C-alpha cells in the first residue's frame, strides 16, 4: 500500500457478482454438452431441443420474475405455489370449456393474485410480520380453502386458451416469447422507473429510503402485488398446459422454493437491494439445463432431488466464498 503518492483513481474492479450467473450458466451448458456427447446422445443438441428444454421451465420463470421483485425489497413470498394452484383451478372452473369465459376467468385469476399480494404486502409492511411467516400462513390459508372445494382436476380449459401453452410463433413457442416479454418489461421497470429505483433503495436500507422521502411501505406492498400477479399468470399458464386446474399443481412443482432458488442462483441477494431480472433468467436456464442433464444421463428421480438440493447450496456457497459478502 503506498503512503505518499497521488491518490490515483482506482480502476473499477471486475465485479464478480455481476457476472457470476453468466459464468454458472456457461458451466451448466458445458456440462449439458459434455453429458450429451458422453452418453452418445448428441441428437439432443439441437435448436428444437433447447427450445423444448426452455419450454419446460416457463411456469418457474414467470414465478421467479415475481419472486425477484419481493426478494429485491428484502421480503420473500412462500405463498406462490398455493396461489398457482388456486388460480389454475379458479380459471379452469370459470372457463369450464366455454371460450366466451376466457376473459372473465383470466381477470378473476389476476384479481385473485392482486388481492393475495395486497394482503401479503400489507401484513408484512403494516403489521410487521416476518415475510417468511406471513406468506407461509397465506400459503396454508389458500391451500386449505382450495382443498375444501376441490380434490381433483376441476373444470376444463377450452382449446382457444390452450394456445397460451401450446401455440407457436414460427419456431418459438408462444409462451416462451411471453416469458421473454415479461422479463424485458420487468427489467425496464427495475432499470428505468422511479419505482424500480425505490425498490433497490428499500431493499438496500429501508431507513435510508424513508429518510430520502420514499414511501417504503407502498413499495413493499406493490412488490408483493407484482409477485402474486406473476404467480397468477404462472397458474393460468399451467391450466392452459394441463388443460385443467388441479389443487396440487403448484406444490407438485415446488414453485415456492424453486423460484427462490432460481432468484438466488441468479445473484439476487436474499437480504435485498442487489440483483436483477437477467440473473433470475440465467438461474432459470441453469435449473432447466440441470434437469435436462439428469434426464439424458438417466438419473433416478429421487437422486435428482438430492442433487438439486446439493446444487442450490453449492451455488450459494460459490457466491458467498467468491464475493465474500453476505449472500443468504
Amino acid at each position, binding site marked *: *500500500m503506498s*503512503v*505518499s503518492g497521488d*491518490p490515483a*483513481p*482506482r480502476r*473499477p*474492479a471486475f*465485479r464478480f457478482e455481476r457476472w457470476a450467473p453468466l459464468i454458472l450458466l456457461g458451466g451448466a451448458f458445458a456440462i449439458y454438452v459434455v453429458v450429451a456427447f458422453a452418453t452418445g446422445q448428441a441428437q439432443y443438441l439441437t435448436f428444437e431441443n433447447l427450445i423444448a428444454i426452455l419450454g419446460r421451465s416457463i411456469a418457474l420463470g414467470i414465478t421467479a420474475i415475481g419472486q425477484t421483485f419481493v426478494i429485491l425489497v428484502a421480503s420473500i413470498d412462500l405463498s406462490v405455489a398455493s396461489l398457482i394452484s388456486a388460480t389454475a383451478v379458479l380459471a379452469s372452473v370459470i372457463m369450464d370449456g366455454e371460450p366466451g369465459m376466457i376473459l372473465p376467468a383470466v381477470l378473476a385469476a389476476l384479481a385473485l393474485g392482486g388481492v393475495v399480494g395486497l394482503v401479503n404486502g400489507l401484513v408484512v409492511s403494516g403489521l410487521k410480520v416476518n415475510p417468511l411467516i406471513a406468506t407461509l400462513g397465506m400459503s396454508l390459508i389458500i391451500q386449505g380453502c382450495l382443498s375444501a372445494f376441490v380434490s381433483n382436476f376441476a373444470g376444463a380449459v377450452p382449446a382457444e386458451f390452450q394456445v397460451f401453452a401450446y401455440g407457436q410463433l414460427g419456431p418459438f413457442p408462444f409462451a416462451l416469447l411471453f416469458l421473454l416479454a415479461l422479463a424485458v418489461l420487468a427489467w425496464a421497470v427495475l432499470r*428505468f*422507473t*422511479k419505482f424500480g*429505483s*425505490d425498490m*433497490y*433503495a428499500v431493499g*438496500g*436500507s429501508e*431507513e*435510508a*429510503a*424513508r*429518510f*430520502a*422521502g*420514499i414511501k417504503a411501505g407502498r413499495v413493499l406492498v406493490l412488490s408483493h402485488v407484482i409477485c402474486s400477479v406473476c404467480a397468477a399468470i404462472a397458474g393460468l399458464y399451467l391450466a392452459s398446459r394441463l388443460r385443467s386446474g388441479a389443487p396440487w399443481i403448484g406444490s407438485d412443482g415446488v414453485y415456492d422454493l424453486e423460484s427462490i432458488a432460481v432468484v438466488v442462483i441468479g445473484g439476487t441477494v436474499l437480504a435485498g*437491494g*442487489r440483483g436483477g431480472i437477467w440473473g433470475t433468467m440465467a438461474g432459470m436456464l441453469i435449473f432447466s439445463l440441470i434437469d435436462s442433464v439428469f434426464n439424458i444421463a438417466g438419473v433416478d428421480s429421487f437422486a435428482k432431488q438430492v442433487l438439486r438440493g446439493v446444487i442450490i447450496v453449492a451455488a450459494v456457497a460459490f457466491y458467498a466464498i467468491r464475493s465474500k459478502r453476505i449472500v443468504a
Partner: protein
Amino acid sequence: MTAPVIEMRGITKTFPGVRALSDVSFDVRAGEVQALVGENGAGKSTLIKILSGVYRADSGEVRLGGTPVHFSHPVESLAAGIAVIYQEFSLLPERTVAQNLFLGREPRTRFGLIDARRMREESREALSLFAAAGRIDPDRLVGELDVATQQVVEIAKAVSTGARVVVMDEPTAALNEAECEELFAAVDTLRGRGVAIIYITHRMREITRLADRVTVLKDGEIAARFDEVPEPGAIVRAMVGRDIEDFYAPPARPEEIGAPVLAVRGGGNDRLRDIDLEVRAGEIVGLAGIQGAGRVALAMALFGEAPFDRGEVTLDGETVSFRTPRAAIRGGVGLLPGDRKSEGLVLMQSVRDNGMLTSRAFASPLSSHRRNANGDLGGMDRLLDGMEIRAANYDQDIRALSGGNQQKAIVARWLSMRPRLLIFIEPTRGIDVNSKAGIYHLMRDLAREGAGILMISSDLPEVIGVADRVLVMQEGRIVAEFPHGASEQEVMHAATGERGVAA
C-alpha cells in the same frame, strides 16, 4: 454578523424520568461552523433530533430564517433545507454515486422514466465543489468507495438538495488522518458557500481546525458558549466540569516495568515485515500509524487471526505460534476489537452474559452457565462492580449501555481469563471524554497488576498520552520508536514521512 439561519429558543425536552434538555438556546449563522460539543448523554443528539423533526420539543421554538417551524418528520426538515449527516451513513452501497445523490428525487424524462444522463451530469456538478471530485465517478458503486469519499458523497447529497443547514454528527469517527483532511476541506467548501454547519465532535483538534464558534452542552444545559475558539483546556473544563490534568493516567515508573511478556523477532506475513517488538509486564505500548500501516494486521497476527508465517514469538519466554484466536486466548492473549458493536459484543445478551462470553467458551462442555473453571457469575459481578459499570442491573441488554460501559464489560470479560498480554484496538472510539479517562486509568491499573498492554489508536494525542512507549508503523513495518512524552509532530512525521527516520 449575518442573522442566524437557525434559532432554537428555550428548548426543553423531557423523556420519562430524564430531563434531556432544559431551556437550551442555540443559533447558527450562514457561512459558519458552529461546534456542538458535550459528553455522551449531554443532549447533543436530542437537540439535533428536535431540529430535524425526529422529536418534538416540550417547549421552546425553532426558527428557520426567522420563521417558526414545526417539523414532525425528518423528511419535512430535509425539504426545508436542513440536512443531517448521521454517523451511520444513509448511503446505499449497492447503488451508484449518482443514484444515491438523487435517491427519492430522481430527475425524469418527459415519459416519466428516470433521466440517467441528467442525473449523471448534475451529480458531476454537485461533486465538483469538492477537491475529491476528480476521483468520484458518478457511475461507481458507493460500496467501492473508501469511507472518506463516501462521506464527501453524503455531503454533496446534502448540498444538492439545496440544504442551508448541514449537521454533521462526529463525521471523523471512522476516518484516518489523511481522510480527515479531505473532510475538513469539504467542510471549508460548504462554509465558503454560505451553508450553516453544526459540527458535533469529541475531538479538540477538529474544533481548533474548523469551528468559528463553540457551544458546550452538559447535562442538558448550555455549559459554555464561545464566540471565538478558546484553548482546548477551556472547552474540556466546560464539558467535564474538571481539569484535564488527570485525564491520562500517569505513565509507568521505571520500577513498575518488569520482564518482557511478549517478544517478537523477525515476524512477518503478507502484510507485515521484519517485526521486532517487545512488551514488558506493567508497560503500555502504543502503536501509531496511518490507516493501512499494518497496526491492526500486527494485532491480528499476535491474536492468531492472521498469523505470522515467519519469525519467532515468545510469550513469557516460551516460544509460541498461535494459528487461531482460540489458541492465542489459551496462551494468555486478549484482544479488545476496534468495532465494539460487530466484533466485541453480543448486543442482544445481558451485560453479565457478555462478560462471561470468553470464560464460557473455554469452559468444559459439562460446566454450567453459572460456574466454570475460569470463574462464576458472582466473580463476574465483582469484576463488573470493580469497573464501576453504570447499568440498571447486569441482566440488562448490553446494547442499552453507553460505549464506555460496554468497553468496560469487554475488559471484564478478559480479566476473568487473567491474560498476560492485552491488545486494545481503538479502545475509546465513540466514547465520551469522561469515560475515556476511565478507560485510560483502567488500562493503567491492568498494567500495574502485571499485564503487558499493546494499544492501537488513530487518536494521536491519546496514544502519546497513554503509552509508555510509542511504536510507529508504516507499510507493515515498525519504523520508529518514541518514549513517553513525544510530540505529535515527531510521531506524525515518522508515520507519514520517508522511511528510515527511526529514532
